[in-house]
């Protein structure tokens, strides 16, 4: 049957070809005059031509002409010359006249036109073709039935759907594959269009079931898809559907099988998310995996690839279960079809992210792909190799890449650079080769983004692998000698000023920097002057010579450069006078030479080198908070960093510290990450506004609001905890959702009888909460500062007077009565007293704190996943993760995770914590947490360590 069809098609094709060659001959003779009916169409002309539709004789006699005009109209739409709504409607009415003709090809074009234009026209106008379409849909011509149905579902609404439902159901089980497919696809569209239509489609399930066993492949595919759509919210139904089709083995269509594989994989992942997997003997999972594995041996590549990809993407799959899928993908790598190679390569690259060892057996095939003509495949192969390769294959790989890198587009190069950076993190010993390799490409041609990605990679490697510092700095120095991008030059100069003075031979960088002062534009000169000043400040031995250089910039034509030079010169001159540099005697032994560092109390070092204790943005926030605090502006004390309020990191900063992208990508995007300015509102401002509470002073921090009711109850209450030095102010935001009530004298009663730490010392009620409004009432708890903090739970109750009001006018009418409304318990934990504040340099801060007041603890916690454990530990302590340790590094699966946390306690002590979290056993039985807490006060350290629950 198939063969015969092919032959027929061939016969048809060859015949057309012959005739077309004939036409071709005519064409050659009149080539100059020949114009394609679709070349240079003018909308106005075509619209004019479209009037032919209104002429019944022309329509009857020349349907071919009508077809051409419709095609021309469609072509206009296709090339962006859209008709206006009025034009479309007018043409549309003309087209409806064409239903008069019985010409099949014309009818087909009419269908196509209606579908294309239906959206542009007024829906009320489109409705008029419904009856014509319905008639076509019920006639005995296959060709009309399927197509009319496909047009019809574009324009019907639920009401009309009811009228044609019977015909659609018949069409689904029609003996013609085309009609059946059309009906099923139309039903799919209807199902997605509105819930009402979906409800109707659901009623056709038995017809769809029947269609799914059709011998026609496409019908199987469409029925499968619709069945899944209908059952998508019925988990059991899906499970049945999948097992039924995977065991019965009736599906012939590769596309339908592809769908079945996807559904099976989804089912397995859902099972896993519910805590069941195939090793536990869940029958669904076991059967599913068997089906996937069997599909790896299907004769169609489509199905094989889909199954392999599904297996690779299964959650919680063991490496040994992956290997059959990897073997299949490995075979695909040498396929003659680019799409097959590409698909296999992409999947392997994803697997290599998490399981490089499993993929490493494909290394040979991957290396062969570096020369692939499809550059995307080649790039993927390289980046994958960089993940799976071993340390001693790096040199060989780099050789292969360097030939490749020169001939590909920048976007691929950037991908490669990122992989190189990751590789260097994995094998720090190879840093010299890798950084050298990247630096070579700094000197090659390339756009800003490419250069930027290299510079960012080198800089972040300096931070993470300190051994690379000296060689990298020299590479960067050479780069700025010939760098056309001001932003990169200034960034590098800043880095040189920061790191250069601390290297073994700082003097060697001076020449590079001073060259910039002579040769560059204003922005770079200013950066260079700043860098020079830092060298001078840090290395007294260089001060005299740098002074000479700096003084030359005093006559620079750029204001900024001149100012910077002037400040540095003046500061350095003072310092040189106060602490003159005494060079060590010429014959001194190497070990006798004192380190070249500024003397204690050196003003130049202090001014030019010490960083601010907080960022400018934080300083601004802190000042704003200071000014808002009651009475602070009246005190005679001068402002110092010590007297400024402690400000917590903003929600965005916290989110950034917790996000998985923090490390690498943030570094890479760092250059262009524009500061997102957002007005930070001090949540404690509402408290300061209450005169009675002014005496409490400044709020230390405020927690995020906690719901004390469900969000759909009559009265919605949420609580914000404001922590003061010796008090806690609880702010209850009460919302009234009852239309005919007004709430007066609203307070929240806190049961403090069980707490030894807190006692309720005052309440501030709120009056007149109308329908839909929310207002705040306050309860003040006094804290016994001597008792150590522990987590305390309070029962709360909302108390108020209900005033019945007329919903329309808001006037009080009728009775008032007292009412009590129980709320959920409120918890005050130690973490509420901890401000999330990052330290700029955790390692240094940790060592400065010392282990005098260190508290060590070990806990076993019931967490199945590392991520959950980390988030919870951070929550328990209420501290801020530092150095990007708030998330797991992408390829560190299985290894213990080290979490660095910092914060400031209510008493003003800085608290630091290092927590090691390790999975216990392989089967997710729990995690082991080892935590060390340091602060100035042992009781504080103890309290913090006890926060772990």
């Amino acid at each position, binding site marked *: 049957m198939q063969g015969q069809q092919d032959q027929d098609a061939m016969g048809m094709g060859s015949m057309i070809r012959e005739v*077309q060659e004939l036409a071709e001959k005519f064409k050659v003779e009149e080539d100059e005059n020949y114009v394609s009916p679709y070349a240079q169409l003018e909308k106005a002309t075509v619209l004019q031509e479209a009037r032919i539709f209104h002429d019944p004789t022309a329509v009857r006699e020349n349907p071919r002409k009508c077809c051409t005009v419709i095609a021309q109209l469609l072509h206009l739409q296709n090339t962006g010359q859209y008709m206006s709504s009025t034009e479309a409607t007018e043409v549309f009415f003309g087209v409806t006249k064409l239903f008069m003709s019985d010409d099949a090809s014309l009818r087909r074009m009419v269908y196509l036109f209606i579908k294309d234009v239906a959206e542009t026209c007024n829906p009320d106008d489109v409705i008029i073709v419904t009856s014509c379409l319905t008639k076509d849909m019920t006639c005995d011509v296959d*060709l009309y039935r399927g197509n009319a149905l496909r047009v019809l579902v574009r324009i019907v609404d639920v009401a009309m759907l009811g009228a044609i439902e019977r015909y659609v159901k018949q069409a689904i089980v029609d003996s013609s594959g085309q009609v059946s497919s*059309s009906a099923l696809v139309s039903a799919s569209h209807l199902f997605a269009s509105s819930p009402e239509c979906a409800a109707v489609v659901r009623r056709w399930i038995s017809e769809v079931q029947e269609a799914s066993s059709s011998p026609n492949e496409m019908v199987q595919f469409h029925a499968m898809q619709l069945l899944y759509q209908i059952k998508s919210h019925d988990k059991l139904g899906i499970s049945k559907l999948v097992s039924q089709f995977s065991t019965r083995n009736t599906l012939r269509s590769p596309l339908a099988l592809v769908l079945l594989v996807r559904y099976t994989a989804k089912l397995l992942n859902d099972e896993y998310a519910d805590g069941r997997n195939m090793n536990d003997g869940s029958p669904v999972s076991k059967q599913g995996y068997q089906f996937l594995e069997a599909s790896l041996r299907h004769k169609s590549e*489509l199905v094989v690839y*889909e199954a392999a990809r599904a297996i690779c993407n299964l959650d919680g799959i063991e490496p040994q279960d992956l290997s059959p899928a990897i073997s299949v993908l490995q075979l695909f790598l040498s396929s003659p079809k680019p799409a097959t190679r590409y698909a296999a390569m992409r999947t392997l690259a994803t697997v290599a992210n998490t399981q490089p060892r499993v993929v490493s057996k494909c290394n040979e095939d991957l290396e062969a792909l570096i020369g692939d003509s499809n550059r995307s495949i080649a790039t993927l192969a390289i980046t994958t190799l960089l993940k799976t390769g071993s340390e001693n294959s790096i040199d060989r790989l780099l050789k292969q890449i360097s030939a490749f890198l020169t001939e590909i587009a920048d976007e691929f190069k950037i991908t490669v650079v990122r992989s190189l950076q990751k590789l260097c993190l994995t094998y720090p010993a190879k840093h010299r080769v890798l950084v050298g390799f990247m630096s070579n490409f700094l000197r090659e041609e390339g756009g800003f983004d490419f250069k930027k990605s290299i510079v960012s990679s080198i800089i972040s490697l300096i931070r993470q692998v300190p051994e690379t510092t000296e060689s990298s700095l020299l590479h960067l120095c050479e780069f700025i000698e010939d760098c056309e991008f001001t932003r990169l030059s200034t960034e590098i100069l800043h880095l040189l000023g920061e790191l250069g003075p601390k290297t073994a031979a700082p003097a060697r960088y001076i020449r590079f920097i001073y060259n910039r002062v002579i040769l560059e534009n204003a922005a770079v000169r200013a950066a260079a002057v700043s860098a020079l000043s830092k060298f001078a400040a840090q290395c007294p031995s260089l001060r005299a010579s740098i002074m000479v250089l700096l003084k030359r910039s005093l006559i620079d034509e750029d204001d900024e450069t001149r100012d910077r030079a002037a400040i540095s010169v003046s500061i350095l001159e003072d310092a040189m006078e106060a602490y003159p540099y005494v060079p060590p005697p010429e014959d001194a032994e190497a070990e006798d030479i004192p380190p070249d560092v500024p003397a204690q109390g050196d003003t130049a070092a202090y001014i030019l080198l010490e960083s601010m204790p907080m960022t400018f943005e934080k300083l601004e926030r802190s000042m704003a908070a200071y000014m808002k605090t009651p009475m602070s502006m009246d005190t005679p004390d001068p402002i110092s960093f010590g007297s400024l309020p402690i400000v917590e990191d903003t929600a965005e900063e916290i989110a950034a510290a917790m996000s998985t992208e923090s490390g690498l990508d943030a570094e890479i995007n760092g250059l262009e990450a524009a500061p997102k300015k957002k007005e930070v509102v001090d949540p404690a401002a509402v408290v300061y506004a209450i005169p009675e509470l002014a005496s409490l002073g400044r709020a230390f921090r405020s927690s995020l609001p906690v719901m004390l009711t469900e969000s759909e109850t009559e009265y919605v209450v949420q609580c914000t905890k404001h922590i003061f030095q010796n008090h806690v102010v609880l702010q209850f935001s009460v919302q009234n959702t009852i239309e005919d009530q007004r709430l007066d004298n609203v307070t929240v009663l806190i049961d403090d009888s069980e707490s030894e730490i807190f006692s309720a010392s005052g309440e501030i009620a709120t009056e007149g909460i109308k329908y839909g409004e929310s207002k705040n009432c306050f309860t003040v708890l006094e804290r016994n500062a001597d008792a150590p903090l522990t987590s305390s739970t309070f029962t709360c109750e909302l108390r108020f007077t209900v005033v019945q009001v007329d919903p329309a006018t808001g006037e009080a009418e009728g009775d008032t009565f007292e009412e009590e409304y129980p709320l959920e318990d409120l918890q005050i934990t130690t973490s509420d007293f901890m401000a999330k504040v990052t330290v700029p340099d955790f390692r240094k801060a940790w060592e400065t704190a010392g282990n005098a007041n260190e508290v060590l603890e070990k806990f076993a916690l019931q967490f199945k996943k590392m991520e959950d454990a980390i988030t919870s530990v951070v929550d328990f302590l209420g501290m801020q993760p530092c150095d990007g340790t708030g998330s797991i590094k992408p390829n560190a699966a299985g290894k213990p995770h080290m979490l660095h946390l910092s914060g400031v306690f209510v008493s003003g002590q800085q608290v630091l914590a290092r927590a090691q979290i390790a999975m216990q056993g392989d089967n997710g039985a729990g995690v082991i947490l080892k935590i060390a807490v340091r602060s100035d006060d042992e009781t504080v350290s103890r309290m913090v360590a006890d926060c772990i629950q």
Partner: protein
Amino acid sequence: MLPPLLPKIDAILVLGSDGDRLAGKYYGDFLKATDDHPNAEESRTNFEKEVQQKIGGVIARPDAAEVVMVQGKTVVFCGGSSQGAGGDIRVVHVGPSNESELVLAHLCEGMYDALSQLMGGTTERTMVLDNLELVFLLIDEHCDGGIILETDGSKLAGAVLLRDDDGMHDPRAQAMGGGGHPQTQGMPAGVSTGDMTLGQAFRQARDQFFSGGM
């Protein structure tokens, strides 16, 4: 990244060798005109320009579609050889990035096959441009609102051609043209007579001749 459970195509394009759109259809929300970007045409042209930048000069065999990524979409195409007058067209399928490249390639190869059958074995730009109505019909038979209807090249070409004809009730034509096709069972009756393939072919020639002569 899990594959879509309800596979949909984002766009089907027929591009000339220098990237001009001969025919194209965008489905669903992909590059659709929204309130923020009322000018969908502009973003579509830009998208096609980017596509052309990546695929220009690359020739994909009819049975081995090539793959590139453009704007986060998987773009699969067939064709593009520079032989013949005006060069060869490319059939381009655009799908979401989590769609299997093999599935997209399968669709693309099917449509390319159908197109070359319809154009009498060639996929030259001029020939395609002259027979755009067949291309429109082909796209419609191939994909409905983003959901794939039919992928087999011969079936697609058959569907487009049979439809295009006036009638099939002549038994001779059935034997010659599409004998055994399920589609032939219910062709419209009582319309004009004529051999399907010949009628079709001659009309094409005639039309071209006339329009060329005028």
